[in-house]
């Protein structure tokens, strides 16, 4: 248990949730501009009933799984909440077809990558995000959209 806690502390340092307000503001501004001008990155096949599109959250952590599958690409990752407890998160993107057309591949994200994911939270309060932005640990931001 102690080993796990230590591991999560390390993850927490990488995550740095909320400790860089200026950077968060820049991210928020960038997301705001994208939403203002282009609207949300569309789902391929279903609507947004499950998500609160009036809010945007950013959750940083370590990737545990990446599924480049139809109809929606999925990312799974571990992150810590405010109390330091480890939480499992999952998020969905648009279709692999649309992401392929802006440069993604099935290897764009790998398990153990550090990652920062922003998007709309689930209305149910579960740890799910409709992903609008992905920034890898290297600082590279993956392109969104996909053709329309």
């Amino acid at each position, binding site marked *: 248990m102690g080993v796990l806690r230590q591991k999560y502390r390390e993850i927490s340092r990488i995550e740095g949730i909320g400790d860089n307000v200026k950077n968060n503001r820049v991210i928020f501004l*960038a997301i705001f501009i994208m939403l*203002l*001008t*282009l609207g949300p990155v569309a789902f391929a096949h279903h609507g947004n009933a*499950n998500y609160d599109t009036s809010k945007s959250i950013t959750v940083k952590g370590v990737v545990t799984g990446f599924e480049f599958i139809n109809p929606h690409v999925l990312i799974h990752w571990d992150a810590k909440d405010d109390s330091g407890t480890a939480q499992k998160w999952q998020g969905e993107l648009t279709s692999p077809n649309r992401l392929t057309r802006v*440069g993604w591949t099935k290897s764009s994200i790998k398990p153990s990558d550090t990652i920062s994911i922003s998007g709309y939270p689930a209305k149910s309060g579960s740890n*799910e995000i409709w992903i609008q932005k992905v920034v890898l640990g290297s600082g590279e*931001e993956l392109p969104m959209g996909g*053709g329309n």
Partner: protein
Amino acid sequence: MRNRLGMFLLAGIAAVPLSSALPAQTTQRPGPAKPATASAPAPEHDLSGVWNMHSTPAQRKYTGNTYTAEPPEMTPWGSQAYTANKPSNGPRTHSLKETDDPVLKQCLPPGTPRIYLQPFPFQIVQIPKEILMFYEYDHTVRQIFMDGRAHPSDATPTYMGHSIGKWEGDTLVVDTVGFNDKTWLDRDGHPHSDQLHVTERFHRLDRDTLQIDITMEDPKALAKPWKTQLNFQLKPDWDIMELACTDNGAFEDFEK
């Protein structure tokens, strides 16, 4: 990738003053969404290629789920069926568990012209006898017969209908009947009956721009013909990819 994103963001920022300076556009019939660079002239009687919907900012507000900013005029039967339907896309959104969208819940073919609202490209292939429309969404195919035949008088009802086409000047006019009544007209839950009649006018404005004027008529569901214009952009570097509807079922369990 970063450069592309930068251009994407810049284009988005540039669109703000442009869209706010032209409020009249939202009230007028949307014009063709032409690419920024000049395009070569359209080849004659040739629509071959991969096409992707390219909406103007005004169109983008509704083309994710329907055809026009204003709702169509429906018959009482049409209004009742529309109210009862539970779409997933659009303003009346329902979760995947709750929706009764026949495309999402049963993987039925989307029908004509709803297939254009599925947000994926389609390819036009021309051979002497017919024009093939090969839609990425669930590899849906339409045959537009160009050999002068008429619709069969007793056409078997189908999802995509029976289509015949002819050239009127530089416009391909496609007439489609013979539908079943199992699908919706759009992703917002507007119904249709087996009396649906769809007319599509394909006009290639230049090499890169295709305009489709669509008229939907259905005496049982629509009080007046429902007309729209959709714009598409040529994607010379794209191929049609696989997209199997049968994968959708897994997502009912994903969202909690």
